[in-house]
């Protein structure tokens, strides 16, 4: 779906944000791009929909080089939800906000109506259809931004820092929503710092530091590897930290999931009780 071949990118200010990145994302994959601030995460995903074009190397989306196609054309396939919803909301009503992209892509009026209803329903926003997006709370504004992208049903959805400014319940809703989207066959890419969130989703993790990919693979393998974590200055999930502190009890160290941890602990405790 997305093919990145030895991409270098330097900003006009002279900052070299990507130094030879190669990556291949298959159709229907769920990828989390992680790494510390300034590692080049956002710069990388902005290559996916052509907002930034590589200074060297190529980015192919569905076989088409991003250099040969406009952002608007690429956006039809690759939806990008920005970190701050306030950078895109401008309409008088939520409904019009969601219709904006659909109109840009030239959908027919009755299709637009149908898509709005569908997207608002999907994100639990139906009651705000005629409300001004500026009257909504932060979390709701974020959902409107998400609805406005999902409405045109892009093949790939990129979410830049989706968990920032969301309370725990909203995060959980978001997580279920993303997993569900992915289960329906959509390619999902999230950019995030939130280790706990990633641990719960268990996607493929692409870890970046200083403009390069330092690790790529299963979340379980990467988030529990202390060497990799140190190199990219991320902290393992709390559950993993507990298990890594309990190695002398003979417990595994690569646990990131709470329910898995519960199962292992119960088994261990029952075994201990049996011995006594």
């Amino acid at each position, binding site marked *: 779906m997305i093919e990145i071949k030895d991409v270098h990118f330097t900003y006009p200010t002279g900052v070299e944000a990507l130094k030879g990145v190669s990556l291949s994302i298959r159709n229907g994959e769920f990828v989390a791009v992680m790494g510390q601030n300034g590692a080049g995460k956002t710069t990388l995903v*902005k290559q996916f*929909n052509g*907002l930034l074009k590589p200074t060297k190397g190529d980015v192919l989306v569905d076989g088409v080089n991003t250099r040969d196609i*406009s*952002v*608007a054309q690429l*956006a*039809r396939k690759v*939806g*990008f939800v*920005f970190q*701050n919803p*306030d*950078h*895109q*909301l*401008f309409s008088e009503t939520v409904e019009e906000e969601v219709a*904006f*992209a659909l109109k*840009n*892509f030239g959908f027919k009026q009755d299709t637009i109506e149908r898509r709005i209803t569908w997207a608002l329903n999907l994100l639990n926003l139906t009651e705000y259809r005629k409300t001004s997006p*500026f009257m909504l709370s932060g979390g709701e504004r974020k959902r409107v931004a998400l609805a*406005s*992208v999902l409405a*045109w049903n892009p093949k790939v959805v990129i979410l830049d820092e989706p968990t920032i400014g969301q309370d725990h319940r909203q995060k959980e809703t978001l997580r279920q929503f993303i997993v569900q989207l992915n289960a329906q066959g959509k390619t999902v890419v999230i950019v995030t710092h939130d280790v706990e969130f990633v641990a719960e989703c268990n996607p493929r993790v692409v870890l970046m530091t200083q403009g390069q990919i330092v690790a790529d693979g299963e979340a379980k393998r990467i988030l529990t590897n202390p060497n990799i974590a140190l190199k990219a200055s991320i902290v393992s999930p709390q559950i993993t930290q507990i298990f890594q502190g309990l190695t002398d009890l003979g417990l595994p160290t690569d646990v990131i999931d709470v329910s898995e941890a519960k199962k292992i602990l119960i088994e261990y405790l029952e075994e201990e009780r049996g011995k006594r």
Partner: protein
Amino acid sequence: MSVFEGFRFRHVSSPIHRLDPRVKFLFVLVMFVAAVLFYELLPLLVLFFIPVPFVLVAGVQRQWLRSLRGAMFLAVFLLVFNLVFGFLSPGTIPWGMSPIEYASAMFLRFLVLVESFSIFFLTTSPDHLSLALEQSHVPYEFTFAFTTAVRFVPVLAEEAQTIMDAQKARGLELERGNFMKRVRNYIPILIPLIVSAIRRSLELAEAMESRAWGAAKKRTNLYVLKLRRGDATLIIMSIILLAMALYVRNFVSPLPTITSLLPK
């Protein structure tokens, strides 16, 4: 955006940069008054070239030219507008002038205004400027508002870029359609920009108040502006320029037109 580039200060040192901002402002003011006094092409042409040596000494010619280029759109608009009205209703232009000469003079007057303000902002740091305002007894609240506005221009420019990206990612094509459509294309950019600027200013105000802004009734400064020899020279030059402009305006009349000076 290139017109803003021509007003953005960069830290360099030159005799012009070191001049007292108040004196520089006086000079700009004199240029301004002189430009408004004349509607004839010849004096405006002279005025246009007066700041050139300053630009060269300060070494800011690249940015200065860029600001002129940025102003060109509006300047050409003025030229065309004045030409059209000059030919349609000749009564609106001063007696004895050809519409072409009058329109060119208005074009040049605008450029004179832009160039003198541009050189002022190019060679005066925002800190220096606020110092000048403060020591000219402008209330600190106003000074602060002014310098904050200047300082936030690059921040806003960056934000505008992000907003443009966000809307492009939703299929907005800025360069599509006729003129009116293109203007309307900017609405999805301007509204989020204004909204977030207002939000940002409220946040800034709260952050400042929680750090006891305005608690001290009397403020002192680490640096105090003092007039030096260069400043005195520029003051004298400004006064001479103003006096000459007033003299020519009131006692030399009529001023020769360019066409009468050209060899037949």
